[in-house]
């Protein structure tokens, strides 16, 4: 967006292909291949170009060449952290076309799996934010408590990360009372930890000093740039797909939409903690009010060919609004499937929000958008005036140890 800003920039930071969060030598790193070119004038960011394409697997062409049943397994592998949400959106888009109706119990179980995933996705990004600002111990604690949610997901769906839980017209597995008890006491163990982390994020000076007033977004900018999810709700715009579309069991399960007005990075992270607590309450409500009946659908009797039609399904992913558009003419292969993930809007259109911040804040703002193709590790600082290149770790930038001039 700001390539014309290059003239008055004094130094250009080129962040190379392997973007890893600098979680220190002994920590893991989520490497997502995205390239961020930050044009900086001294300490102040003047322009940002976002280079994409390294993660492009040609999914949409692949979805057109495979049957609906194989597509369901491809769509759930578009993003590993929010795979049940991709599955749900694709399966509902096909259900709108074919007119299939899942049973009440299946609709409750779908919401249960999606809310468990929302908790572990929000915990993951808060752990990475704590890591970005150098708070390693908090990262380790959050990751340890996240293992509880992974165990709950394994109990419900048989897979830790990839749940394979949805199928057209229902779900693929059911839970009995033994599993229900196991998950309920996992949630009982998890609740105090989530409340503790939420209070910590609000009061701990090391966190609030780095996150408050950083990356403030006015509601008008957020909406005009098409940013969705916790970023929208962190800037005071009340828009949550679960409350708008009321799909699956969201019209029966009570929940409230979390909105915060400050619009800075801290508000976005607190919206995520509140949503995780809200999801925990929803999971508990679902487990106690699970309707009886058959939820599992017999995949041998499902039709292979669906009637022609066009459908647009929306779902609230942990990172924002995820939409699937399917156009189907004939046969068992869709004619066109368009997947628009929340990070597609949040990251690629977010070039405007880094301006007038210091370079040390660019990583904090980027991680506050919960980028699914995220995070950068090493930056090459190019001093445009005398053309010297300096290798500096992103963590040093984030800690402000980089003196550019």
């Amino acid at each position, binding site marked *: 967006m700001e390539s014309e800003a290059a003239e008055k920039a004094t130094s250009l930071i080129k962040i190379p292909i392997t973007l890893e969060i600098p979680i220190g030598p002994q920590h893991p790193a989520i490497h997502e291949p995205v390239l961020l070119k930050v044009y900086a004038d001294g300490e102040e960011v003047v322009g940002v170009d976002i280079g994409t394409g390294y993660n492009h697997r040609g999914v949409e062409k692949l979805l057109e060449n495979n049957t609906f049943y194989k597509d369901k397994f491809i769509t759930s592998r578009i993003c590993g952290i929010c795979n049940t949400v991709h599955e749900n959106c694709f399966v509902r888009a096909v259900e709108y076309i074919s007119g299939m109706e899942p049973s009440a119990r299946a609709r409750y179980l779908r919401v249960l799996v999606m809310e468990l995933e929302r908790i572990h996705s929000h915990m993951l990004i808060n752990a990475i934010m704590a890591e970005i600002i150098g708070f390693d111990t908090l990262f380790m604690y959050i990751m340890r408590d996240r293992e509880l949610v992974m165990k709950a997901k394994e109990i419900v769906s048989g897979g830790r990360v990839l749940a394979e839980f949805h199928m057209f017209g229902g779900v693929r597995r059911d839970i009995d009372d033994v599993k229900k008890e196991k998950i309920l006491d996992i949630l009982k163990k998890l609740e105090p930890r989530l409340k503790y982390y939420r209070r910590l994020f609000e009061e701990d000076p090391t966190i609030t000093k780095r996150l408050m007033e950083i990356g403030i977004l006015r509601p008008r900018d957020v909406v005009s740039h098409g940013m969705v999810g916790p970023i929208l709700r962190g800037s005071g715009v009340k828009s949550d797909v679960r409350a708008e579309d009321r799909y699956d069991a969201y019209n029966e399960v009570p929940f409230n939409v979390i909105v915060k007005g400050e619009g800075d990075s801290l508000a976005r992270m607190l919206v995520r903690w509140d949503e995780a607590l809200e999801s925990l309450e929803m999971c508990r409500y679902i487990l106690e009010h699970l309707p009886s009946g058959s939820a599992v659908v017999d995949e041998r009797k499902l039709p292979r060919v669906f009637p022609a039609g066009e459908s647009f399904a929306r779902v609230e992913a942990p990172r924002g609004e995820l939409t699937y*558009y399917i156009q189907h003419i004939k046969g068992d292969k869709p004619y066109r499937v368009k997947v628009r993930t929340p990070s597609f809007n949040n990251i*690629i259109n977010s070039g405007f929000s880094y301006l007038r911040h210091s370079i040390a804040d660019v990583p904090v703002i980027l991680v506050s958008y919960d980028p699914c193709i995220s995070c950068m590790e090493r930056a090459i600082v190019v001093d445009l005036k005398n053309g010297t290149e300096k290798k500096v770790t992103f963590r040093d930038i984030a800690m402000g140890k980089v003196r550019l001039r």
Partner: protein
Amino acid sequence: MLEVSEIKEIEDILANYIVKKDVVKPNRPAFYIDANNIRDVIALLKQRLGDEAIYISNIVGVDKVSDGVIEVNYFIHLIPFSNTIVIKTSIPRDNPKIPSIIDLLPGAYSGECETYDLLGVEFMGNKYLRRGFFVPTDVTSKNIFPLRKDVKV
């Protein structure tokens, strides 16, 4: 969901542009409009509903080989009505050009660049269009748009 009164309100906002009305499942109102007054429709929506009320959720290009046309659908989410309306336009397939709405809604940057890179739809007025936004170089070097139906990739 979108009540009838709200659909009525949107319809009379866009009254003189709508060519045909349709519904995209499950309940999204769809309006066919002529391709080159997309900008007036977006400007009208922004002006009547306010800046903080609409965001562009999705731009979908569909390559209709049989009737020689590329269909460009704009999915615009209206926050006050809490539903998404679909604005459908179609442009000729051999020379796909459509005015860009990037200055009205900067959120369209990612959608337009991707549609250009994957389908070859030229958005006039968007100076950030480039090949290789997503597609690997050996496909762009053969000057192929991968999502075209008649292309062997």
